[in-house]
């Protein structure tokens, strides 16, 4: 306590040259470690509502990579050129005080994802314990909560020692989960057969082929955009934007999409599974067949939750006032305790509304990516004021009006409204034009246009000005 981090890796300070030591290989494995987790099953399960196996496979991989375009341009060039993580990178677009909004956003979303993974791990462990006869069915909910908390404790014990663990275990975790994931895909295909898989019908298709196709694209764009809080935190350890292209797009985009195929195929073959292959594998092959899937779930989720907890803790420490009061261990404890509270009190409602949580990522992060791309590339021509990024006082380069970039908030608000006009993220009810445009792309574009126009028209006090 009462100790401001003097290390850039664990606090709000910019990284020094020798601290930016991740090679493209290290960045790829850390990205893949972060990407591959059981949210892939749930996401694949959602796509299985709308598309059959062949189309679903293509859409998942292609749309995921397409979404990475926005996330990459919004985060990576800034992160590698100026060493910025997510929260600090929003000072130009939200203002010095306004970037507190991103602290909340990053913290809530990374905690949300982490919670999903811990609940999933607990559910899987409880199911296995019941199947093995270790726990009675009546005690399954308790076993689920306890297992989730044990996984969370492991995550906290590892990441509270410092973020260096991510680079050290990244290769091992990434290789293990990718190998186990491919093994699970092979087992599913071998047991069910290609023919049955290709014949399986999506369980909630609307009958409008274009609408179903676009809805699946939208889900994958939302998945890609949900990487926004994570990407800067990792790529700021890299020294080159150009050399980060393949590690980030393939590590976060392709690796995730390939493992999502497990959820897609499982969701098609076992429509009530929600994409989780464990119950199906237990049913068709018993415990021994389900063990690789279980190992995948635990290793992948612990690895990913470590990255999430790191990102959440780092976002908290971007505010010097918080940085002064919370040690690294303290901030990881805050993140861990928040997840623990949700696991104990809100696990079921939270888990049941995962689809809404996913699309809310697109609602928020699509416009935010548009805002950052417009600001960094169009308005500022890739030149930021380093002192302004780290100066918290009035009068600094990104202070604007009372510490807020009004233009940035207004533009993002317009983008969010456009999204809601096209797609309701709770009910998935959509406007007729949605089938042709998606909701993410127009909302992102609207934010870009409004921000650039306002920057040309507004008084200087409210935000950046270009003439």
């Amino acid at each position, binding site marked *: 306590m009462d100790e401001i981090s003097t290390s850039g890796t664990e606090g709000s300070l910019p*990284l020094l040259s020798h601290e930016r030591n991740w090679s493209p290989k290290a960045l790829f494995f850390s990205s893949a470690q972060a990407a591959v987790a059981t949210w892939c099953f749930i996401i694949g399960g959602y796509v299985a509502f709308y598309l059959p196996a062949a189309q679903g496979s293509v859409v998942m991989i292609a749309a995921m990579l397409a979404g990475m*375009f926005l996330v990459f341009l919004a985060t990576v060039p800034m992160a590698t050129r100026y*060493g910025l993580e997510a929260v600090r990178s929003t000072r130009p677009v939200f203002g010095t005080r306004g970037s507190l909004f991103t602290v909340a956003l990053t913290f809530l979303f990374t905690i949300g994802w982490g919670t999903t993974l811990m609940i999933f791990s607990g559910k899987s462990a409880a199911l296995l314990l019941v199947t093995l006869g270790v726990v009675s069915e009546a005690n399954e909910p308790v076993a689920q909560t306890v297992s989730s908390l044990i996984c969370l404790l492991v995550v906290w014990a590892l990441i509270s020692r410092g973020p260096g663990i991510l680079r050290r275990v990244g290769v091992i975790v990434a290789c293990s989960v990718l190998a186990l994931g491919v093994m699970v895909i092979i087992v599913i295909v071998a047991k069910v057969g290609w023919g049955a898989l290709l014949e399986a019908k999506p369980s909630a298709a609307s009958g409008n082929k274009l609408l179903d196709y676009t809805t699946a694209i939208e889900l994958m764009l939302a998945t890609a955009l949900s990487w926004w809080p994570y990407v800067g935190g990792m790529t700021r350890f890299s020294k080159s934007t150009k050399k980060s292209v393949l590690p980030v797009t393939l590590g976060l985009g392709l690796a995730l999409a390939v493992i999502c195929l497990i959820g897609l195929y499982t969701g098609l073959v076992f429509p009530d599974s929600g994409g989780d292959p464990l119950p199906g594998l237990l049913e068709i092959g018993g415990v021994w067949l389900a063990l690789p899937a279980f190992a995948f779930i635990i290793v992948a989720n612990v690895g990913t939750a470590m990255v999430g907890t790191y990102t959440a803790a780092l976002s908290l420490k971007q505010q010097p006032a918080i940085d*002064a009061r919370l040690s690294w261990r303290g901030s990881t404890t805050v993140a861990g305790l928040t997840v623990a509270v949700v696991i104990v009190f809100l696990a079921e409602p939270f888990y049941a509304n995962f689809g809404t949580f996913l699309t809310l990522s697109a609602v928020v992060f699509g416009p935010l990516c548009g805002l950052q791309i417009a600001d960094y590339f169009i308005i500022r021509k890739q030149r930021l004021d380093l002192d302004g990024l780290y100066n918290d006082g009035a009068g600094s380069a990104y202070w604007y009006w009372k510490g807020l970039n009004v233009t940035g908030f207004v533009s993002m608000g317009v983008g969010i409204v456009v999204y809601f006009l096209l797609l309701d993220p709770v009910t998935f009810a959509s406007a007729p034009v949605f089938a042709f445009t998606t909701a993410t792309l127009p909302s992102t574009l609207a934010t870009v246009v409004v921000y650039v126009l306002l920057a040309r028209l507004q008084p200087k006090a409210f935000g950046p000005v270009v003439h």
Partner: protein
Amino acid sequence: MSTLKEQYAEELNARLAEWQAGSLEPPFRFADMRTLHAVTLALPVIALILGWFL
């Protein structure tokens, strides 16, 4: 706390000085984006068009 704040300010200045003294990575120009465009735009668009006909 004031000592801590001073330490923080000193550390920050030292770090910013390194950033300002060292040459920043050159801007990410359109010509540098070929791989990005190929992997995240061209390939996905072609795949999504072909996927429609599956």
